[in-house]
């Protein structure tokens, strides 16, 4: 009973703040609302018996990635720009496309979703995740680390362009 109440409350928070992200004019308010939405998602993970994943969601997404977003938004000093009003054709295609996508998503999810947790007792703590990462999934793990290295090198190269070396 209690978990229904918690679930609906945090689901409402996630949806409302996601709507604020899309609809608000101010990008800083949007970024902070996205943080609130991620926090609500982390609560969902806790409800699904995965506190490790919830903590990781907050540390990585809300704590590092969104801070970076906020930096960029604040340093760029984006002003509210006046956009030209959208034409009726654009509006119709936009609404129709999103509605079709939403209906298809709900339909396929309700057909294929699994409504219960796996039957065998599973523990989703750091030890099992670590063991799985370093035993079964070692190859994707190393590939992801190379991908991150490529991203870092790319960022360094891009930011170093135009710097005069003396």
């Amino acid at each position, binding site marked *: 009973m209690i978990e229904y109440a918690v679930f609906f409350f945090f689901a409402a928070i996630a949806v409302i703040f996601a709507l604020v992200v899309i609809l608000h004019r101010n990008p800083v308010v949007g970024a902070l609302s996205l943080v609130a939405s991620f926090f609500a998602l982390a609560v969902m993970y806790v409800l699904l018996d995965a506190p490790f994943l919830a*903590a990781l969601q907050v*540390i990585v997404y809300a704590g*590092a990635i969104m801070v970076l977003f906020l930096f960029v938004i604040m340093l760029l000093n984006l002003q509210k720009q006046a956009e030209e009003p959208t034409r009726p054709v654009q509006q119709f295609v936009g609404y129709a496309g999103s509605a079709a996508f939403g209906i298809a998503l709900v339909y396929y999810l309700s057909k294929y979703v699994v409504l219960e947790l796996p039957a065998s007792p599973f523990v989703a*703590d750091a030890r099992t995740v670590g063991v799985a990462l370093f035993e079964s999934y070692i190859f994707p793990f190393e590939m992801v680390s190379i991908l991150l290295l490529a991203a870092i090198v790319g960022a360094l190269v891009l930011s170093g362009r135009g710097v005069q070396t003396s």
Partner: protein
Amino acid sequence: MAEIDKVDVALSILKIAIVVGALLNVTPIMVWVERRGSALIQDRVGPNRVGPFGLFQSLADAAKFFLKEDIVPLGAHKWLYSLAPMFGLIPALTTIAVVPWGRPFPLRSGRIFEPIVADVNVGILLIFALASLSVYGIVTAGWASNNKYSLFGGIRSSAQMISYELAMTLAAISALMVAGSLRLTDVVWKQTGYFVLFDTIKIPAWNILSPAMWIPCIVFTVAAFAETNRLPFDFAEAEAELVAGYHTEYSSMKFALFFMSEYIAMATVSALITTLFLGGWDIPWYNEPATFLGFLLSAAAFTIKVGILMLIFVWVRWTIPRLKYDILMRVGWKVFLPLAVINILLVALFIAKEWI
């Protein structure tokens, strides 16, 4: 899931009340300690008018905060300006939920009273998560004040905080490797044992007393100074350069909230250093019995250790000059981060050879 047990809920509410009450009372005490302590270090007297030894100065300050005019600058963002102090306060108050502050003991009904608000399996990760959230208070305050100096202070401080978060996390990992678990209660229980030297001398197995942990302890403490924006890392509030940094435009109660959140964060981070490196609630050379008296003694030991650490925070503030910003960032990335990473390997070596 299991049904809710009413006694559990009542005990949890009691524990939350104790912990939050203690944290909220840290601020007036620390204000007095800071002002008299800084006066002692600077060879002057400090506040001594408002009561014996100036003990009621905090009450006078609180009354001042209640009665001051609350000025909102023109052009400040209506919502974020008021919400920013709360973003700063919430992580500081909630992090203490996973820190054990006393020895568990059985109540008369047989139920074990665990003096920790939330004994989750991944305790330390929640602390890292909430530490990352504390950046938002400063960054939002700096931006929402519509003041260029505040914005600079906010951005600088958040860059510093996310840099030192990395060093802090990696240094904490060394302490967790010794305990073999992410749960802070396990970390403390591991430190209640003893190292036996030459078969006679028993040294309490606190992490700070084992040589492989000296470096992580120093790295964690320095990173804790950086996380709470205390000198020598307080570029966000540098009085000479940035007026008052991110809280320039805040007055009266909102400034009081920032003030409070800084001291509460200091207390929380001291509690963390105590738990990870100083043995938590363990009294050295004394096996606390699992009774109410044992619990009280262990809680008192915890409080004393946290108090000593906070005194060290105040002491360092008035001893070491402020680091220049680029030096601060360089030291954070090029010195502390490699030290913490190398030490993880060192601790792994010690554990493999069973020296710890």
